[in-house]
């Protein structure tokens, strides 16, 4: 399961696909001060990333994946 939506944290695991974008967006809309756990995340589909870039959640766990760490985290944190 690439997407686990908890009370205030979304845990993204593996490759987050385009299908996950819709529930993630919905969750981001409804959650106060959301955080994301990217620890086990390998890739984020553009559609999901677009939602993250709009909502700018905190990153509670940094990704282990090099690409995400090098390029996506700075964007989310900027």
């Amino acid at each position, binding site marked *: 399961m690439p997407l686990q939506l908890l009370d205030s944290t979304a845990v993204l695991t593996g490759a987050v696909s385009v299908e996950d974008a819709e529930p993630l967006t919905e969750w981001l809309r409804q959650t106060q001060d959301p955080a994301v756990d990217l620890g086990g995340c390998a*890739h984020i589909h553009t559609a999901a990333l677009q939602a993250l870039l709009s909502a700018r959640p905190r990153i509670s766990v940094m990704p282990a994946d090099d690409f995400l760490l090098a390029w996506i985290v700075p964007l989310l944190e900027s």
Partner: protein
Amino acid sequence: MSELLDQFIEEGSELLTDAVSGLLEVERRPDDAELLNVVFRAAHTFKGASGLFDFAPLTQVVHAAEDVLDAVRQGRLTPDATVVDAAMVAFDLAQAWLAQIAQTGQLPADAEQAAPRAAATLRALLGQPGLLDAAAVSVASGPQRLPEWAADALRDLRDRVALDVMDGAATVVALRYTPDAAVFFRGDDPLGTVRELGATVLLDIGRDGAWPAIAELDQYDCAVSLTVIAAVSLEEARERLRYVSDEVELVEVTAADVRAASLESAFSDAVRGILAAQRKLLAAPCPDDQRDERLRSIANSIRGALDSTGRATQLLDPDELDALGTADAAALERVLARLVGDQPSRSDHPSDQASDQTDESGSPANAGRAPVSRTVKVDQAKLDHLLELVGELVVAKNALPFIARAAEDGASNRLLARSIKESHQATNRIAEELQATAMGMRMLPVGVVFGRFPRLVRDLARRLDKQICLVTEGEDTAADKDVLELLADPLVHLVRNCLDHGLETPQERIAAGKPAEGRLTLRASQEADSVRVDVCDDGRGIDPDAIRRVAVKRGLEVDGLSDQGARELIFAPGFSTAESISDLSGRGVGMDAVRAVIEKLGGSIGVESETGAGTTVSLKLPLSMAVTRVMVVVVAGQRFGIPVEHVRETLRVSPSSIKGIGHHPAIELRGHVVPLFDLGEELGLFPAEPEEDAVRILVVAVGGEEVGLIVERFEDHFDLICKPPDGVLAGNRALSGTALLGDGQVLLVLNVKEVLGHAVAVA
């Protein structure tokens, strides 16, 4: 090749032809919405069909054209000449590729490079970005050559990663990827695509305007754009991105670009000021004895200024570092010019490039050249009729076993002969009808050939600054498909000639009291067994005196030559190479080549002209080449066929009426002298042995001259299916073909002109 692909090539070619002819109309009637729709639909259908195959560049080019047409349809773009030109160039390109696919099953090797350029040209009309042709751009150097977004990205780079990463990589590309809003529905993941490209050196994801709050985000539309610098080769990037190349701008970044970009960001105004001062100093006059001293001091100052940035080694390439060491005036000037000065040479390149492109695309020579189609559309009624005839043939065939049985039962010869004749009559009727029907299926209207001319005339007229109205008549005249295909090239030649030389410029025409717009008429009609095509213009005509002057210069005898005779000299071989003829009279460029082609097809060519009023060139071609009527003659015991169109008459004369005129035998025929040749001798066989009392002579027309051929015997006329000679006979120009006679013998059909070519020239 698969049947599906065959069908795509056939239909695609038709769609493209429709689109181009539609576009020509659109230019004339820009307000006709339905017309525009037709063109748009053709492009749209083609694009859709092309998507079934792995021809991404083809789809890309037509897609871009479709977008342009859509913009025109919605009124966002005016269909002026530029727009129509661009769309037609795209369709031509697609047509050419289609021809290549038809031949080899593959796109040409350069399609991957050409497609983005063609698409970019089209999208430029829409003010949209397209994939830039990096190969062309990288000719220039320096920061100006990079699009602004790429230069910006490079400047960003300084803060993010060490430049060393890039110095180590062989090639680096910068790309901006602006996905279509609907990209998620297509299953594309732009980030994934970029990620797969690998070796990312920089990635920035932005969007038009600020990020909306999450509540307002439309998660179904892709609104991001990605700017990427990656350490991969241009080819690799192009290959990886080829399915989204419409949405990507791609440029190659060189080490020099990186240096130049970091220059801009590295230089403080102070450093820039120091360098500028050094440059001034370098240019100032200086006594010789102080020169070396000054150069060294300048070099040191530059060095010091650059060191203060902490990146001297990145800002200068190794040669430039050397130059600082040697303190050579010219080398220093070069370094300073690059660091602070302007380099005028850079800005020259883009314009060169632009003119190159128009040259390439504007060539009407390959305009509308469709792949030669090997399929014919046949009316179903004709096919049904064919099937009916086949049925009758089967019935007729069944009569033969009855006759055989009757023979076995000992029927009388008379009765048998009558049955066989009846059976022959029935079969003969069916065979004749079968033949006519089959030939009819090969007939196409001449309009198929005329169809390419509106485009050619338009393009040429624009290029030559002439106003020309093209009129076509008799498009329905039908002729054999092969004849039409072979007719196309000579016609193109004639039309070009006419536009180039025959028709005057609007100014000249008005001065001569004619309407500014010239008129070019293509007229087809049927004349007995031939199709006649006239190419008429109302231009300046052919001036016979001018021709005579040129003829005299070329050492030809012109005394007593009529005006008409002089005009016909334009068909003479060698006349074509006279530059002055095209300047004076406006004709004669390659006309001998046209005549050669037409005569090879068994046709003829003629010219009529009135000085100042126009010229008409008429071509006459056999309606069909499949069946040839030949006359069979016997020479040296062998039978030969001679096409009836060459035969004027057959004669039997007494040996005494043959006179030697000069050193050559000839006869007098109705007041004309007709030279005689012995056909056996000309063919390298032994000469005919004349009977005591009569010589048989076949009078043939060769190039308008009557010539007598001495033969041993005349035989019948035959309608034959004449096959071109193949195998070892293929190179023999004296043969026009071979045919099978009813008794199973092979008949050699002679090309009279070639057989006698040599002899006639000698006489």
